[in-house]
């Protein structure tokens, strides 16, 4: 599904040049659950953002479902993103002015799904994430764990085949973290490809494969036995 070819990302500011990714080659297949680990600042988030088409690589190739996409225009990338990729962030990133229901509904609006269909799908997703009773609440009225479940609901609502999660449990206590991980595993079992950045070894244990990054390089790819 995803294949990178000598991916390089260099950040230039006035004073310094930081090479965040240095010739990264990796391949992620359909249905995989991949964890990316490594010390702070090694380029995990950068990699995830490039895979998610939120950022451009400086050099190298990125293939997505067989298409070469690193030169896509903003418009093309948005279209590809909205149909294929769901995001979960460490800091939830819900819109404060919208209710839980409306936050989850948002991707469907951009996919031009009909109103009745939207209603059905949002309610299903909320049921599934176990927060249907909070549909009319605003994000600030929810706990962190609940907010992250809303964010996951928003990520899955468009039925993407890839979910990218950047430290999805980073702001949660172990109980809530556990719950979020269960949801992600479940989605993976249903066929969604998941790429997750994490610092937590126990979260990483849930994955099929761990990619270790160090200083912009892939150090090891650690195949795990599926339990």
């Amino acid at each position, binding site marked *: 599904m995803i294949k990178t070819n000598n991916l390089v990302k260099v950040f230039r500011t006035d004073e310094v040049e930081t090479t965040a990714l240095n010739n990264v080659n990796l391949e992620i297949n359909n249905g995989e659950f991949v964890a990316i680990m490594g010390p702070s600042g090694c380029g995990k*988030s950068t990699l995830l953002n490039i895979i998610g088409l*939120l950022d451009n690589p400086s050099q190298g190739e990125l293939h997505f479902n067989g298409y070469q996409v690193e030169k896509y225009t*903003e418009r093309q990338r*948005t279209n590809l993103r909205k149909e294929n990729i769901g995001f979960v*962030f460490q800091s939830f*990133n819900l819109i404060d002015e919208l209710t839980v229901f409306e936050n989850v509904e*948002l991707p469907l609006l*951009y996919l031009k799904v009909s109103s009745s269909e939207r209603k059905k799908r949002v309610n299903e997703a909320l049921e599934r994430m176990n927060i249907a009773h909070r549909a009319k609440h605003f994000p600030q009225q929810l706990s962190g764990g609940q907010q992250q479940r809303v964010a996951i609901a928003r990520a899955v609502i*468009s039925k993407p085949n890839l979910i990218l999660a*950047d430290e999805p449990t980073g702001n949660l206590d172990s109980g809530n973290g556990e719950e979020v991980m269960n949801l992600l595993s479940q989605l993976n079992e249903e066929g969604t490809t998941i790429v997750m950045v994490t610092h937590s070894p126990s979260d990483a244990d849930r994955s099929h494969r761990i990619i270790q990054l160090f200083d912009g390089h892939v150090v090891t790819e650690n195949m795990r036995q599926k339990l």
Partner: protein
Amino acid sequence: MIKILLHTVLRGLSRQKVYSLINILGLATGVTCTLLILIWIEFETSYDTFHQDVKQIYSVYENQKYADGDIFSVYSTPSPLAETLKKDIPEIENATRIVSSWGQLTVNVGGRNFIEKGGKIVDADFFKIFSFEKIYGDTTNCFLNPNSIVLSQKIANKYFGDINPVGKTVVINSKYKFEVSAVLENARENSSITYDFLLPFNFFQEFWDYDLKDWEANTFHTFVKLRKNANRNDVRKKISKIISKHVLNSNVELDMQAFGDYHLYSINKGSAGPIWYVRLFFIVAIVILLIACFNYMNLATARSERRSKEVAIRKVVGAQRRGLVGLFLGESLFFTIIALGISIVLVELLLPEFGDMINRHLELNPGNYKFFFATIIVVLLTGIVSGSYPAAYLSSFAPIQIIRGFSRHDSALVRKILVVIQFTMSVALFISTGIIYQQLAFLKRSDIGYNKDNIVYVELGGNFNNNYEQLKNEWIKIPGVNWVTAANQMPVNFANSTWDVNWSGKLKEAGDILFQLSFVDFDFIETFEMNVIQGRTFSKQYGADTLQFIINESAASKMNMENSIGEKLTIWGKKGHIIGVVKDFNFNSLKVGVDPLIIMRNPAAFKYVGIRIGKDRQPVIINKIRKSWNKILPEIPFTYRRLSDDFDYFYQAESRMSKLFLSFTLVAFIISCLGLFGLASFITERKAREVAMRKVFGANMDQVFHLLLKDFLKWMLFAIAAAWTMAYFVMEWWLNGFAYRIHIGIGIFLISAMLTFLIAFLTIYKLISSLSGIAPANMLKYE
């Protein structure tokens, strides 16, 4: 999509009440001012358009050319012109003369007397040219009968009550009997032609013993209606030389003005007519609307730090930039529409006040499609202009930024520039208002060459001289009455001129010079306290003294005489001598200079009696004057005017407009201050953390205060410099339109600067005091 847009906007609105309120109030104020001005402009431009054939109607006027190259344009034309035009020019279908009844008439209706000033004398074609609505009777043939009178509805009601008065009789000046043949609607508010009643020309000829065949006397307005499809420029060419066919050595060329332009445009080059105000206030409307839009842009962008997260998330889940631009434009349109709702209420409330201010009766007429479309255009423009920058700016956030946190996009500079422009415009308006007021005050108190205060005057009809002698004898006995004199016109608006003046040394090349001519009685100079600089005034010692002239300084210099006393002068073939020279005095508005003037004693032309009374107990004196009048002329009600009121009247338009200007300036200032306040509160919000942090590490508030103040002052100085320059040049240009003008002083500029600094200072102070109230712990929690 619309629904979710409404949701976001409405929730944002209720969550950020101050922000929303400032935004909506700013827009509402801007839209209200614009709508008020548009209603007024609509009214001004609607003048005379209610006549069905307005496109075919023209007002014929004279361009009089003088030796010094001046062209003086007047609507007054000779009496035979209308008839001649109709006969000689095939394209002219109808023509009418119009003239006022020349002073007041006494109308007797069934034993009751009414003094009327609003009568007009017109030809039968009047009714074919203009389409005033008929209420009763018939106007097609009415002026074929020389004893017809046509009344306005108002007068018909006053005389006869609520019945059809056609066929009833009225008697004018106890001698002329008329039969009412029709009743017309009252002249509308937006009609240039007004009338209380209309009379045929036979009356005029008989009553004034006026020679209606005379081509040399200019007295009448001439209006013509062209045939459909007639070419206007052909007609202009054809009429241009008509006067010279009938008058030897005429310096007059005829031209015509579309009746639709009659109200708005002056026929004299250089004087602008009401169109000037229409344009000026159109610009003011745009400036105020822009200030309000800038306000919105400013606040919306300032808020962007919050909105950026929303934008980024929307982009992550699939929003395209174009859609987001639409979203923000939709939002500003939505704010504008709310503002419009408030504006409509405000306009409804303010319209009467506004109308009073400009002396117009204005109405909000929802059925007026022009106004309806104008409103839609105003709303769309306001919405789009206001939303443009925020939309462009906000939609530019890349989604990556939410993940990485925000590098500070620098909209701060743009925002500062917006505030600077707002303040530039407001300060420039402020200075302009100040200068306009100074100029008006200057005009009112400047030395006009005579003493206009404590003069009352009355208009005297009928057998003037007989009544005048009796009245004068009575009045002069009243304690407190100092002088009594008579004249054909009061020195507030001289309008009687001639170029038929000859003197011994007159050079051929000097050509025609236009002299004002005034006919006065003994004691005229004394009554008005004018200054004689050479010779003497008219006096009974010299008998009737009718073939002696007094001239003003300007005339003396035009005649190029060393010592004018005793020089011979011929006017209209009458020979006489110059006996005195008076210091130039203003007999017109100070907007124009002083023309050369010749004064002579001519009792046949007297129309007004002027009385100088004492300063004290004026009501008592005037009451005594009234009593004597009632004794001598019991059948005519006593009415009088004060010369100083007339004088004020000259500047009424300016005075009204300057009040209006002041109001709009205040509005502009208020909106700008709202903007500054809004901006300040956002700075507060943004700086709160920084300040908290500084406090944790021991900074003191004074330092923060100075830092902010320095930044603000720098930008304010910028605004002030720009405003000074702008105001200076615009006001120089405006003042140059006056013959007598002030020189722009530094005072108002300094005041404007002080005011601006004060506002800036107070804003910062407010900002700092709210910042210093924040406990550091509170702020740092929410990183």
